[in-house]
């Protein structure tokens, strides 16, 4: 019988090093905000961070802050503050948690890093709508609040094949950001610096991909829940050497596990693919729940979203445009399904869990019949759980638990 039991979940030794580089990153931003020694840009997580770094900006990512609010379970108390000023409970709960926290004057950074009292004040906000429209609304609110420019890229969405017309359009939009960025920072754009940063970013991305793809091994040395934590440097430090050094270290540890046949989830019996956002406030709960059923949620579209294989320093603008437009979230359902099918095969998956996140329609891919279509085409069973990335009012732990247990019972029954 599929019954949850206490199972040893292996800790990753490199985590301490990640803690150090993340602390360095936040303290550098905080110092720059305080002494105004360097310009600060806020950027969307799959936005043109490379351009910003190349122009001398330190970069803060509000989505990373939103995820921290979720993981620390502060978000649910912050969201009502934003609801009260007109941002409804059904829109992006990163947005509502982040604006709510700002309105309340609190940040999880203060708990994690002594001496940091607030998020670093921006000199400019730069968005890319490749993920959703909410990022533009979110950044516009701060633009008004801080009276600083808000500039961005409007990406074509629902694309099956990324064509030259999409790439050219986005590349031009990236170039068009430069005059404002030069004006705000006082720094002149230098193409060689962009090429250097882009090369570093690609190297980080390649290493991150190798890290995630170690989960293709049986048993997997990695879980999706590990991935959501260790993706930090790929999000906020890509384009820098510390991120590359970190993933080199992490990869070596995971390859060592593979060599020694060490499983991230002891006694791995079922291999699960996670489609959608994590429930940040339930990472540990969900990790224990699946591990207790000898199921390893080992791969996800979400963590893969920071793999930018197309970056090419010899063609910086177009390759950035291509990489940021080829993202899963930008694409049509047809393209998404083809991608997931490749992942199911590569990771040798037994079942898919779709997280239908109430406030994130763009990352909830089960709303237009995809789960049913995929099940029919691949024969791999799926489960849809209702929840949210940040707003814990939107989920029922008991229902999730029953659903997951019943799903693993089904996998067990089908295996015979």
């Amino acid at each position, binding site marked *: *019988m*599929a*019954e949850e039991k206490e199972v040893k979940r292996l800790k990753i030794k490199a985590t301490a090093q990640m803690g150090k580089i993340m602390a360095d990153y936040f303290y550098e931003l905080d110092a720059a905000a305080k002494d105004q020694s360097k310009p600060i840009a806020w950027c969307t997580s799959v936005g043109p961070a490379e351009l910003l770094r190349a122009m001398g900006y330190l970069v803060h990512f509000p989505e990373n802050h939103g995820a921290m609010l979720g993981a620390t379970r502060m978000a649910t108390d912050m969201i009502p503050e934003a609801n009260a000023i007109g941002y409804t409970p059904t829109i992006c709960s990163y947005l509502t948690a982040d604006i709510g926290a700002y309105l309340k004057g609190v940040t999880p950074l203060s708990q994690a890093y002594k001496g940091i009292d607030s998020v670093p004040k921006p000199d400019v906000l730069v968005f890319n709508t490749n993920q959703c429209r909410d990022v533009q609304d979110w950044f516009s609110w701060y633009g008004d609040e801080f009276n600083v420019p808000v500039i961005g890229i409007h990406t074509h969405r629902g694309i099956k094949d990324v064509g030259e017309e999409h790439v050219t359009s986005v590349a031009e939009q990236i170039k068009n950001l430069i005059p404002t960025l030069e004006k705000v920072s006082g720094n002149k754009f230098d193409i060689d610096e962009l090429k250097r940063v882009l090369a570093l970013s690609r190297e980080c991305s390649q290493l991150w991909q190798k890290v995630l793809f170690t989960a293709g091994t049986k048993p997997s040395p990695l879980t999706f829940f590990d991935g959501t934590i260790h993706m930090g440097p790929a999000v906020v430090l890509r384009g820098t050497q510390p991120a590359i050094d970190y993933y080199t270290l992490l990869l070596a540890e995971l390859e060592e596990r593979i060599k020694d046949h060490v499983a991230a989830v002891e006694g791995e019996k079922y291999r699960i693919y996670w489609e959608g956002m994590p429930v940040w406030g339930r990472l540990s709960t969900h990790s224990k729940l699946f591990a207790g059923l000898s199921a390893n949620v080992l791969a996800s579209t979400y963590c893969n979203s920071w793999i930018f294989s197309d970056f090419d320093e010899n063609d910086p603008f177009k390759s950035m445009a291509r990489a940021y437009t080829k993202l899963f979230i930008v694409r049509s359902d047809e393209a998404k399904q083809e991608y997931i099918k490749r992942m199911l095969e590569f990771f040798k998956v037994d079942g898919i869990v779709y997280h239908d996140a109430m406030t994130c329609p763009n990352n909830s891919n089960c709303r237009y019949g995809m789960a049913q279509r995929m*099940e029919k085409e691949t024969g791999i*069973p799926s489960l*849809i759980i*209702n929840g949210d990335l940040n707003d814990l009012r*939107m*989920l*029922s732990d*008991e*229902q999730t638990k*029953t*659903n997951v*247990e*019943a799903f693993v*019972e*089904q996998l067990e*029954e*089908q295996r015979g």
Partner: protein
Amino acid sequence: MNDRPVFIGTDVGASRTKLAVLDSDRRLVGYAVLKSGTDFTVTANNCLAMALKMADVTPGDIRHSVSTGYGRKNVEFSEATKTEISCHARGCYHYFPMAITIVDIGGQDNKVIKLDDQGRRLSFKMNRKCAAGTGAFLEEMALRLDIPLGEMNDLAVQSRNMERLGSFCTVFSGTEVLEKIRNGKKVPDIVKGLFYSVIRRVMEMDSLTAKVVMTGGVVAHNPYLVTMTEELIERDIQVAEYPQLTGAVGAALYAMDAKL
């Protein structure tokens, strides 16, 4: 007293706790249904005492015991747990051994479970975190209409002109019911509209393919819901003799697997 082995299945649901006693020949020889209340452990113990008495056996005759439902971890005498999805499937297949689609309407959640002709589960769906379409919805509406829950079935049967409700949400439905009362609509017509709303919510969860079997407390107490569903899908629906007990029977069958 007879000296014969029995197997216990306990289904601690959000609303009611159901317990089934099966003998070695898989016959239901005892059962009990009580309000789950606030102490699931005590309720399960009370159910056990009642059902063992009915079966004319003693605790010493119990060979194995499996519990299911939201309170499955609170059953002291249970030796293993299994989800209600698996137990309802197992219980229904016991009574109807064929490819079936099970529609279970419980106090707090609904399930649609599909089994192949070997009883293997093909898929399952549970309702979202919402009372729409569950027993809790009917309880809330009975309060609004100021009628005992137990009278809803008879009232719905009397309806001649069903009043449909448009809303998905229990709170909005409550407002709609008040509006209908204010406009002088007849209570039987409103109640039938409420039943229709429950059925629609369930039918939105999944397609009803193969032979349909309906279970759960709401069906047990409101057989007219089954008739209405049959009319809607234009097919006969199977209902077990004790539709509220199928989860508990399934749990008892799993208990039997473990020990026979």
